[in-house]
């Protein structure tokens, strides 16, 4: 249902968060507009009430950003399946609002992926790691997850990366191979992907405001973990950023607005 709705919108209109038509693009007839208005409004309302059981699987949920992601999903009444690194963390994740929490196990992941509508993948890429540092991301696990996601038919895949992930492109030493390899693997896959490269993470409370760009000028720009999490959660259904790589840091635009207007 929501995919139909989102699909139609792309041709005809964009909408504000209240489901009101802002402008009409292309030769959409009156009937069509009305139909979409109805569909769209009912979808938005359903999501609000928790009626549409959008299921989101969060891989790496136990991290600093992951905790916020789970909480934000719960606040939006989206059903979160948290995948943690070990058993000890699952209790906390349930407490934060995850519908289920499991320990990461590739063998058992397929049914969970099949039951999910979207994946949020939190890598361990750290923008504070400068060129002298080597890769800290488990490429194998990302590659596996992407394969599994394709196999299980989950369509939407949001990955957290870092603003400095692309530095391996220009690194003459060739010692920090492929910090952006995960991004490339995701782009090559048959998924509706969004890679969100975030700035340096801080523990400040979220301001709810960001700047969004294809390439952020200030490579040391900061973003609170809470805001980073909100960007990831809000990205799930923002069609403007489907199949693209964007960079986010603290700024002046409300998160939802920034993502919708990108």
């Amino acid at each position: 249902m929501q995919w139909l709705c989102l699909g139609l919108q792309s041709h005809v209109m964009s909408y504000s968060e209240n489901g009101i038509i802002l402008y009409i693009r292309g030769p959409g007839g009156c009937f069509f507009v009305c139909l979409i208005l109805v569909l769209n409004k009912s979808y938005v309302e359903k999501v609000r009430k928790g009626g549409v059981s959008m299921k989101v699987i969060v891989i790496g949920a136990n991290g600093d950003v992951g905790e916020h992601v789970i909480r934000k999903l719960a606040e939006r009444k989206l059903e979160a399946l948290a995948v943690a690194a070990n058993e000890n963390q699952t209790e906390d994740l349930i407490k934060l609002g995850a519908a289920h929490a499991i320990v990461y196990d590739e063998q058992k992941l397929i049914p969970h992926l099949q039951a999910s509508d979207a994946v949020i993948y939190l890598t361990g890429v750290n923008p504070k790691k400068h060129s002298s540092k080597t890769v800290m991301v488990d490429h194998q696990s990302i590659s596996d997850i992407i394969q599994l996601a394709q196999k299980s038919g989950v369509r939407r895949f949001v990955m957290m990366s870092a603003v400095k992930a692309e530095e391996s492109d220009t690194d003459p030493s060739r010692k920090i191979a492929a910090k952006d390899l995960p991004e490339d693997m995701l782009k090559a896959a048959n998924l509706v992907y969004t890679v969100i490269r975030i700035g340096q993470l801080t523990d400040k409370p979220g301001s709810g405001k960001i700047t969004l760009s294809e390439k952020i000028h200030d490579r040391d720009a900061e973003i609170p973990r809470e805001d980073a999490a909100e960007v990831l959660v809000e990205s799930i259904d923002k069609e403007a950023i489907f199949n693209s790589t964007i960079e986010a840091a603290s700024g002046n635009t409300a998160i939802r607005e920034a993502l919708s207007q990108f």
Partner: protein
Amino acid sequence: MSLTDSLVIALFIFIALVIFVPVILFIYWYVKDDRQKQHSILRNFPVIGKVRYITEKVGPELRQYLFNNDTEGKPFSRKEYQDVVKAGKYKERLIGFGSIRDFDEEGFYIRNTLFPKLVDEMKVDNTQKVKTRVYKVDGDNLFSRKEHSEEKLADPYYLRDEDAVVLGEKTCRQPFRVKGLVGQSAMSYGSLGEKAITALSKGLGLAGGTWMNTGEGGLSQYHLAGSPDIIMQIGPDMFGVRKPNGEFSWEEFKKKSEIPEVKAFELKLAQGAKTRGGHVEGEKVTEEIARIRLVEVGKTINSPNRFYEFEDAPSMFDFIEELRSIGGKPVGMKIVVGDLDALESMISYMKESGKGPDFITVDGGEGGTGATYQELADSVGLPIQSALTVVDEMLREYGVRDRVKIIASGKLITPDKIAIALAMGADLVNIARGFMISVGCIMAQVCHTNHCPAGVATTDKKLQDGLIVDEKHYRVCNYVISLREGLFNLAAAAGIDNPAQFERKHIVHKDKFGRVSPIEDLLHAAKRAQLQKES
């Protein structure tokens, strides 16, 4: 008048100022000192003798800032003081180039394991973040330190629900469940000013998982300002729960027990500072104090040093039973351990009757905020290290340890000291002076004078002007969170997954010669001493 003339006049005036005025002053002081009859030094050495009094006056400050080394000040060294301040201000406890503890001296040490717990394996609850503010240093120069304060979502380091410490679990309609092991010890409104109490209340309320003990001076609106969990203390003077004639008022008690923030009550049999009754000068009993404490305005209060309501363990336990059944909340008692026989007979009666307190606060007897007499603070009651294990062991011997929680207090202001107390048998730890430092105390040691320069232990409005509640309450919050974080660090090192698991086996005592002995040895020594007393 020519220029020369005016210059000459100016010169004369100059000489008059520079020479005559000091000479006249000197003669005045000389004569005054010589004639006074109070100080012999001044009579024999007029004027120059003043140096003695001036340096004596500023001595504590000079020692603290210049002459004492970082580890030797009392009651707290410069180092200990800074540990508290930095934890509050920067939420930071890192040091460089090693410890400055004197390892040749005797002391307690925590036994670490070969294979500590990983961060991921710790049973900690960080699901609720705390919105606080911390300082960040931008630049540190000789004459100025540039720093700014910024917001931070901090991990609160709560215990998991299943590890929470519960007071009155089986005895009360409303047990007190606390998810942290550190709280604020008894400090009354009156001994601390309203601003300090408000800052503490807000900071502790913000941090959560902790508690605030009102002290015996009654429950004020300042204690309630930040809605922290409150343990209301009741002293022999019954402040806040008394009738005008000084008897216990069940009606007032019921009112207090219905306040949601009030989670438990504590009968103060003794405390470190005072193994005596309180005394409040009539002029200090303002209208506000009178309203809070339920006493008459302007009338001097002399409190008894024991409750009139009971005189021995059976009558006290009956009183506790009644408090519990009317209030529905846990009731504990605060003691200073001295004579083990009296303690033992009480504990044996606990077993016999099945009654007793829900918690026992064991105070080290070192004296805290309270203005007290030197002889009581210095030499009455056992220090906490000796008292704690004895109480714990005695409760175990009589098989009642599971019915009662032990709260320890006495200079336990850093995570390592708290962990050692937990291992010795404490379930929870109370801190008073650490929290005073976190709201600005500079250890001027003038709590009894109402002239606290930091505006903490004073009700003087002008002095309190220095204390900004909004800034200081974050330091209180950071300090308590930082202590809990430190406790988790120590627990991990000891190979346990949360600090509530500390046991005797996790610590040892090392003597001057490097010999290491378990805590049980302390117990044997305490028992031997008691036996000798009896024979």
